[in-house]
């Protein structure tokens, strides 16, 4: 059989063209990431003064910082993770240990998968109807609860996945030694899966740190420095939203600084989580 040089040339050309496109896709994707980071650094760094961390959000035209927003964000995120970790780890444990193939386990897994990808704004609406409307006012607690329900599916998912990597022989050996089931889970399952579970928690932390939409309906905003979880609380993402959409240049500047802070935090957490899991497993 003779090779047709025309076909060969066409195939080679097609291959070159598509490989070029694959490279282009990669360059575009990384280019966008780079463009975002460059813009953040370029517009955020030169306004990064100590006053950002010490003064509250200003009225347009006067000097100020993001102190109240940072405090609010830390409070809301802290309580959200505080609630989400024990519940998430326990639910993940149920899915991996007790309810592995039970019907209830399948239902829970299904709901968790949906919640994992459901729009975060919907969670905000849910908490608005569940907490804000009955109580009658926006509050930091409502915000923390909304973020908790966004972190929860992430933690449940990673906990289940990580516990499933623990070999069953290890479980059986422990049980055979007369260890109660719960103790086997705590001292063998959790212990072996700990790096993975911690990674999941850090990723959940990274995810909720930048969440904006659910906070619009729950913790709302507060121009003043407040440590009360019972009152409306300003958070970094909401302040960024408000300031970036405003026509005032100094507010927009502060929005860039806030964005830089959030992005650096979130990216650092994500990279740390990946390094952590790679080192330990």
């Amino acid at each position, binding site marked *: 059989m003779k090779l047709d040089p025309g076909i060969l040339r066409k195939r080679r050309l097609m291959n070159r063209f598509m*490989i070029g496109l694959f490279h282009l896709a990669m360059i575009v994707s990384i280019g966008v990431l780079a463009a*975002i980071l460059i813009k953040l650094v370029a517009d955020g760094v030169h306004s990064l003064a100590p006053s950002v961390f010490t003064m509250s959000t200003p009225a347009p035209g006067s000097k100020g910082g993001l102190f109240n927003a940072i405090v609010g964000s830390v409070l809301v995120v802290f309580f959200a993770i505080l609630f989400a970790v024990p519940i998430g780890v326990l639910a993940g444990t*149920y899915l991996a240990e007790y309810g592995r193939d039970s019907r209830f386990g399948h239902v829970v897994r299904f709901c968790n998968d949906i919640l994992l990808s459901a729009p975060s704004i*919907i969670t905000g609406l849910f908490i608005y*109807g569940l907490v804000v409307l009955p109580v009658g006012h926006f509050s930091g607690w409502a915000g923390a609860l909304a973020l908790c329900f966004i972190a929860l599916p992430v933690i449940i998912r990673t906990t289940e996945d990580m516990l499933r990597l623990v070999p069953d022989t290890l479980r059986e050996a422990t049980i055979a030694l007369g*260890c*109660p089931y719960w103790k086997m889970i705590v001292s063998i399952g959790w212990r072996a899966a700990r790096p993975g579970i911690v990674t999941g928690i850090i990723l959940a932390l*990274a995810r909720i740190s930048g969440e904006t939409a659910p906070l619009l309906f729950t913790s709302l905003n507060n121009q003043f420095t407040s440590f009360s979880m019972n009152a409306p609380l300003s958070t970094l993402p909401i302040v960024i939203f408000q300031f970036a959409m405003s026509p005032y240049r100094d507010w927009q500047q502060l929005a860039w600084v806030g964005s830089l802070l*959030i992005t650096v935090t979130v990216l650092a957490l994500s990279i740390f989580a990946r390094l952590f899991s790679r080192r330990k497993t």
Partner: protein
Amino acid sequence: MEETAPAGTMASRNSNAFDQAKVPAAQRPRLVAFGSGFEPVFGLASRAAALLVVLVMAGIFATLCYQSFPAFKTFGLPFIFNSSWNPVTDKFGALPAVTGTLITSIVAVVCGAPLALGVAFYLNELCPFRLRSILTTTIELLAAIPSIIYGMWGLFVLVPIMSKIIQPAVINALGPLPLIGAFFQGPPFGIGMLTAGLILSIMILPFIASVSLQAFATVPVALREAAYGTGASVWEVCYRIILPYTKTGIIGAIMLGLGRALGETMAVTFVIGNAHRIQMSLFAPGTTISATLANEFTEAFGKMYLSSLLALGLILFAITFVVLVITRILLHSANRKIPV
């Protein structure tokens, strides 16, 4: 005593068990009793935590249905197909927001899916081994950047580029054409459906790429090597071997991206323009369900206004629910364990 003992390697556990044997017999049953006493507590706690997930899911549906009941009662099912949105006269319809949501998401998938597949093919077939994990992490970081940052970047960087360079060029080139020209007409505002769709395409790219990569990993090595061995080019291996083998997984990945795009809020809110009108042109400002909620919720006065907004939320949840269920079925039928 057993509580405080450092639990650890099998060796230390064995020595614990050995120590226990020396404990006076009277004490041993108590230890066992404690274990069996805590077992139901632990089991119940983990079951309760799992139940909470189901309750949250049910609670979301119940709350949204309850809160949007007044709107559906007043406007009936036509609420979904009505295109008026007038807070002053208390006349509300969901059509502009629903079409906006669908159009931006379709633009996002049409632009984002090929890009994501290109990235996935590059990482799977072309990338040097040393760079692979670094580049994969870099793509994943696109998913870590908060939505609001995309929104700001879109408003301050992408919108000027769109209005000064891209949109005038496209309007000149495609605007006069019959049929498709209608999609590319009007003044180049910079903001609008297309800009929102483009931002969304970048945001869903990492999800589609990473789920596709997981699907690619299931292709048997022998199959790929056989193809390369018979002289197939890289493109032919991608197109004739990997693509058919992982078809279901890829469609699942794209559906997952669609699900993400439908509910994305902040990024869209910045660049969509918030106009409750249905227009042919992709350059026209519009709105989506989530952008409407983000823009108008805090200033919504009146029961009907609020209820209509929550009804929009219910519609959004219903749409994403269907998309995510299809995603889940697809990815499971591919018989692989893929994070959804």
